[in-house]
């Protein structure tokens, strides 16, 4: 109910204010993202051919198709902090070994300094990745859609040579951030889809809350690495995992 009210409120002011030509721009607040992973698609890739996958089909029947988790993105002008949000009990739960790595990422990005610090759980390891903020060549398109009451424009980028990222951003939020490590568009990214890892992130609501500076703190715990050295550590062990090994690398490196 709360969600509906907030969305309605947002819809109201976006429709209302334009008439007065007095748009409300947002520079700080909290966005909730719903992350959805299509577990069934992940499972499909375990089998090399369509034949003999009856046991996989059987497994799929017992678990939900989508694993859903929530994240909050706190932002204040040029700083963003993306971290796990509310927990919604899934019934039944998706087993850990289906969910793969990096499901509880914390990402702090300083957009001014173009620096980012993120904490990721990779199986039995916790990494603290300190590196420059992710840079993507975004191709801006004409497509638009509404997310959480905001009109968003689609942009398409590519990471790690071959992984396409589809992002939807709104210029109504002036912070050029986004979920996970995504940023660099003329506005806030409210939706991301990465087909190669069967995952989407879409904003469910924006709360215009006061963000205290101490709340926007970078994570500190974890084994310190940078993107390049993390990738190197992952490549060896994931080699034997076939398709899901490559997907795991992408899931971790986003």
């Amino acid at each position: 109910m709360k969600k509906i009210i907030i969305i309605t409120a947002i819809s109201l002011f976006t429709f209302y204010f334009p008439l007065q030509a007095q748009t409300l721009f947002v520079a700080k607040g909290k966005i909730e993202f719903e992350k959805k992973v299509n577990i069934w698609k992940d499972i499909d890739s375990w089998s090399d051919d369509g034949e003999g996958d009856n046991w996989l089909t059987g497994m799929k029947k017992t678990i939900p198709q989508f694993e859903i988790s929530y994240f909050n993105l706190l932002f204040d002008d040029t700083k963003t902090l993306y971290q796990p949000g509310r927990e919604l009990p899934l019934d039944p739960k998706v087993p850990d070994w289906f969910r793969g790595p990096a499901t509880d990422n914390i990402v702090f990005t300083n957009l001014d300094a173009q620096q980012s610090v993120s904490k990721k759980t990779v199986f039995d390891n916790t990494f603290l990745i300190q590196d420059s903020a992710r840079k993507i060549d975004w191709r801006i398109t004409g497509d638009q859609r509404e997310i959480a009451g905001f009109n968003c424009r689609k942009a398409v980028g590519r990471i790690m040579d071959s992984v396409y990222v589809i992002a939807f951003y709104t210029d109504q939020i002036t912070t050029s951030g986004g979920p996970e490590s995504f940023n660099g568009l003329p506005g806030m990214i409210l939706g991301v889809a990465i087909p190669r890892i069967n995952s989407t992130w879409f904003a469910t609501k924006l709360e215009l809350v006061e963000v205290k500076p101490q709340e926007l703190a970078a994570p500190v715990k974890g084994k310190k690495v940078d993107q390049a050295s993390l990738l190197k550590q992952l490549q060896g062990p994931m080699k034997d995992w076939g398709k899901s090994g490559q997907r795991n690398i992408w899931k971790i490196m986003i």
Partner: protein
Amino acid sequence: MKKQLLLLLTLTLFYFFANAQLAKIKGTIYDTINKQNLTNTSISLLREKDSVLYKFTRSGAKGNFEMQNLKAGNYYLFITHPSYADYADKLELNDTSNLDLGTLIITLKANLLMDVIVRSKVSAIRINGDTTEFKADSFAVREGASVEEMLKKLPGIQVDKDGKITAMGEKVNKVLVDGEEFFGDDPTIATKNLQASDIDKVQVFDKKSDQATFTGIDDGKRDKTINLKMKDDKKKGYFGKLDLGSSLNDRWNNSAMINSFRAKRKLSAYGIMSSTGKTGLDWQESGQFGSGDSGPEYDADNGYFSWSGESDELSNSNYYGEGLPKSWSAGLNYSNKFNDDKQNLNGSYRFNKLNAEGAGNNLSQLITGENTFTTKEYGNTFSSKMRHSLNGTYEWNIDSSTSLKVKAVAYTGKSNGFSVNNSQATNSLGAVTNNSIRNYSSNGDNANLVASILLRHKFKKVGRSISLNTEQKNNQTNTEGYLYATIDTLNADGNLIRYITDQKKNDGSTTSSISSKLIYTEPLAKNVFAEINYNFRKTTSDAERLTHNKDVSGKYLNLSDTFSNHYKFDVTTNSGGLFFKYNGKKTTMSAGTDIAFADFSQTDLFTKEITNRKFTNFFPRANYAYKINQSSRVNIGYNGSTQQPTIQQIQPVADNSNPLNITIGNPLLKQQFNHNFNINFNTFKVLSQRGFFVYGNFGVQQDAIVTNTVTNNTSGQTVSQYINANGNYNYYFGGNSFIKLKKLNANFNVGINANGSKFSSFVNGLKNTTVNNAPGFDVGLGKDKENKYNIYLRAGYNYNFATTFVTEKVKTNFFTMNYNLNYTLQMPHKFELNTDLDATIRQKTDLFSENNNVFVWNAYLGRKILKKDKGIIKFVAHDILNQNIGYSRYISANQISEKNYQTITRYFMLSFVWNFTKAPPAPVAEQK
């Protein structure tokens, strides 16, 4: 130094110079209608050639903006504001541009005219977004035409002589069938091989890179694509497997399997005949060709799946028994889905026939305290079993929260067999105490039915659910057998006395049960759940064992009272239970108990004696699991359960199948209660690829069902009766560590294991205890080089310490060693070589002085043939050294025995395996 200064100066100058060369733009954003400067408007520069964002900024408080350090090039200036229409204009910058764009005027969206949307509706062609859709039936083609011929008729599509397709002027790179790329990347395979009449719609669109189908969201890459939407009833095809093998004399292994499907209807059939041990479908085959009914059960608390397919003694994939098997089996399976997959019907029929002939010998030692008997026995057996089975499942997902499953499995079968055994026993002085020659033949039939209905409902509140499972089971067996035994036994005077047993045995037993279980779960608090259950079960058993001696007329008409009985055994159980579950992020716990009231009613129909007994039992269960991290976990559990005596154990009648070793049931036998503790810990370091696990299990049996064996000290004949005993336990534990040797790129593992038990039984009325401990360790090394070779080496060492106490302590200690080497080599020209050597070395003991070392060496040479390596021809050599033999050593109570029996030994076989497919493979589960 000077040079460096000069260089620095040059660089600095160059920097300023270069900087000065970069372009600069500025401007102001203005709304003429409302007469105001617009702040926060986003101003972006996109590269003209590919719309990639180069730089962006936002306008300041007065609508002003400025962008510096811009590289020369062709751009779009792209201005957006939430309330205003987008502004885009070409902008060419050169190295020295310093552009003042002045006032840029943008317009409120509200003032723009709405786009005019024109929809054209043509029945045969529809344009839906960027997809052009053709209704296939609207374009007439001849009967039996291929999809290619039909495509030629569609407006805007051309097909050239090579089958290459052009749609709307662009080359088509992909042809999908129902959105799936069944046919690889060559589009002509689908268009040439599918029939036009199977196609419902042809959709032409720009496919948005490979995976965008999942989200329906464009990721930028485009491929002109045709999707052939098949008529639901025309999704058809088949796949199968043919395996033919023969040694040209007595070893053969042939099987044929096929699965043909049309839409969601699946029809599969298989036939197997083999004398090399294959008796049924293996796990993978049963997924493809078997009844493939219900999937796994999922344990959400612990995150694992369990498959519990009905298996019976004849449905195994391989023969594990003694002797040489010959088997024939065949199956037929039908499955279909209806009503959006909400209803699922599955039916199957299976036929099995298994013949096994064997020969073996047995050496055993029986220690009574006063005497020691050594028995040597050898024999031949033949058995034949035949069975027809029917299996039906119906599943109905009534709505998203309610489901019904009805299941029935039935079989009827026949079995027959005969055996001939010769034995001789000697006492500690070396004198013969008994001889026997036994012939037994039997003929029987059996029938079985299991039917169940499971109704489940999940309530809206997460964690609240109810389920009701009702099950009925019936089992019936009837056997007619003839026993002819010639027995010589030593009497007190030191003479061997001969007696002959010539009997006909009719055994009939019927067991039926009905049970119903209701389970309700309720969430109590966050992560805390309660489960309440009630279970009713009634089991009725009826066993008639009639033994007739041959009379003078040569007919079996004299009923033997000793060996005949008719008994009824009914058990009614009412049980209820309460369990609590905590399901946290890291910790999962559950604890609770069932309490069961069991009423035994035993009726001896010969003596009309009725015994009624009541038992109250608790079935406690507790489990604790802690997740240390995603790949480390510890689990501790306890459960208690009862084991009811079987009717054979309880029926007061003697079984003289072996007249030298008679067993008698005990009507006063109590239930056995089992306590079981287990602990597991495992951890895996994913990135360093090393792991470690330990496991342990400890079980204690209260009122364990054991035997009291009374041995005649002169003749060595025994009579055993079932009885309860305390103090029995068993355990096993072990640990294993595995690491990846990175330099060698090989896997190494080392482990320890141990198992043991304390087993009490009675010998001549005295309590006897056997303590057995068997520790061991093993190491293994494996290396796999893809498409080159793989090799695996393993060595295991086990020691066995056994001590039995009757009147004296007897120790039996020995070790066994096992080595295995398996090597597969992929050779040029699609040849493949495999060799597998298994060596077992067993220590001799005082009693077992025969050489027990066995080296089994198997190998094959194969060559892949046909397209996509779908076929393989193999030359198989099994047990090249001709040493294979079945073996077991057994130490229990006052008896130590070793058994050797015949198994499949050396043969050479030529075999051919062919995997074939036609049209799309089995449809993948649909996404919703």
